[in-house]
């Protein structure tokens, strides 16, 4: 187990090393303002992380991602609950959500700018609208994965609604919800930089826009890496929570 894990990490590192080496070669061939050398990108990335005034932008974006996801999670849970209770509600709501799924993030940016004033509210609106449909469908799937057998078994003890929720529903939907958070986190991290084009005066999206105006490729890379690192860290955290929450599962010794 430990071996295959070490192996996986090594392979992942090897892939990144090859990518970095390729980039480094390009930096010898082309001008540095097109392909800045890898050490420069790394030092700029670290600079953002250790400079308080810059780190604030990363944290601001992280806050916007979490805010949007949290809003979409709450709204999505309510919608999933309503849809789960009635087929009619599903027939009304599901097509609307599917329709929303087809709207590009940039369109939401335009709508938000026209409709609303506050920057943070615009960003929140965009984040929620872009992640809500997938979140709702995933929560709904988690609900529907509940076993009829376990439901009947539990009902035979005559639980109150709250007890049923605590003892059966929560444990059944937790795996699906953790997966939904992981998937939507990736989406949200990609959308947030677009959402920050609504006139935000801070955040990774704002910084990226500035690097473009300055024609600073190393800076653009450094800010991009902030988001990538952020997603990796949070996903690993969710993985850890998942491993803990699902520790009861049988582990197959044979890799698939």
């Amino acid at each position, binding site marked *: 187990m430990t071996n295959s894990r070490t192996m996986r990490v090594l392979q992942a590192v090897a892939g990144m090393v090859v990518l970095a080496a390729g980039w480094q070669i390009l930096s010898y061939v082309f001008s540095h303002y097109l392909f800045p050398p890898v050490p420069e990108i790394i030092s700029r990335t670290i600079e953002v992380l250790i400079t308080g005034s810059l780190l604030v932008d990363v944290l601001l974006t992280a806050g916007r991602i979490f805010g949007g996801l949290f809003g979409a999670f709450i709204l999505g849970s309510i919608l999933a609950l309503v849809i789960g209770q009635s087929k009619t509600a599903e027939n009304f709501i599901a097509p609307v959500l599917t329709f929303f799924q087809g709207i590009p993030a940039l369109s939401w940016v335009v709508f938000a700018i026209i409709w609303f004033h506050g920057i943070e509210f615009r960003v929140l609106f965009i984040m929620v609208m872009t992640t809500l449909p997938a979140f709702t469908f995933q929560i709904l799937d988690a609900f529907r994965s509940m076993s009829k057998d376990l439901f009947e078994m539990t009902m*035979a003890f005559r639980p109150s609604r709250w007890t049923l929720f605590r003892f059966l529903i929560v444990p059944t939907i937790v795996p699906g919800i953790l997966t939904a958070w992981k998937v939507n986190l990736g989406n949200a991290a990609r959308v947030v930089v677009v959402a920050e084009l609504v006139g935000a005066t801070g955040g990774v999206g704002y910084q990226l826009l500035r690097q473009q105006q300055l024609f600073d490729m190393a800076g653009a890379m450094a800010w991009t890496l902030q988001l990538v690192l952020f997603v990796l860290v949070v996903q690993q955290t969710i993985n850890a929570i998942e491993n803990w929450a699902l520790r009861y599962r049988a582990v197959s010794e044979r890799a698939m």
Partner: protein
Amino acid sequence: MASADPVIRFRDVSKSFRRPDGRGDFVAVDKLSFEIGKGEIVAVLGKTGCGKSTMFNIVAGLIEPSSGEARVIGHDPFREFAFFRGKIGIVFQNDRLMPWRSALDNVRLGLQILDTDAGHANESARQWLMRLGLSGHENDYPHALSGGMRQRVSIARAFAVDPEILLCDEPFSSLDEMTARDLRAEFVRLVRLNNKTAVFITHQINEAMEIGDRVLVFHHPARIAYETRLDASTSEEKRRTMHDDIMRVLSVEQAPT
């Protein structure tokens, strides 16, 4: 309520389901009437698809009869949902353990739902696991237990709430015969020792005769086609005759269509 009142009473109970293709109804239970008294162990025998589980679900209050009257301890099991808290213990065909709970926590489930004091629930669950020969496995998750052990946990879970009635729907049919025989004997011993009333559904004649004080044979759709009583003093010869009679009744029954 006088002690002579039946614990379970069905009067002309019918249950029909809508056909999946929407063309009319399908009768699973057909004017079924019977009574089960306190302390009885009744085996219900019938072919697959004859409506045994449907009858069982009516007693358990999980579904409502289409017509007729079902009473358990004098109450309507479907309508008076809350009345039956802690009064019925169920062992299903498959163990239905919660995979995220350890053996001990699975046994504690009913006690937790009944709001039993945590310390007491723990102690009681531990003892039931011990009685079913599972000491040392308290903290094992279901996936780490064998099929027989899992079904033992589910029996412990049903007994732990100290219910008046135990309902079992073919609980040992997926186990090998050796394990099933051990568990049958164990089950009957526990029911008698704790003075419970039990309904035990099966499709095996031998199992029905081994467990029941009384055997009800179901027609297809469910109503009583044959009924007999037996106990420890019933002679080998009489048992053989009963067995043959039951065989005959069952073979007359047409196979489910």
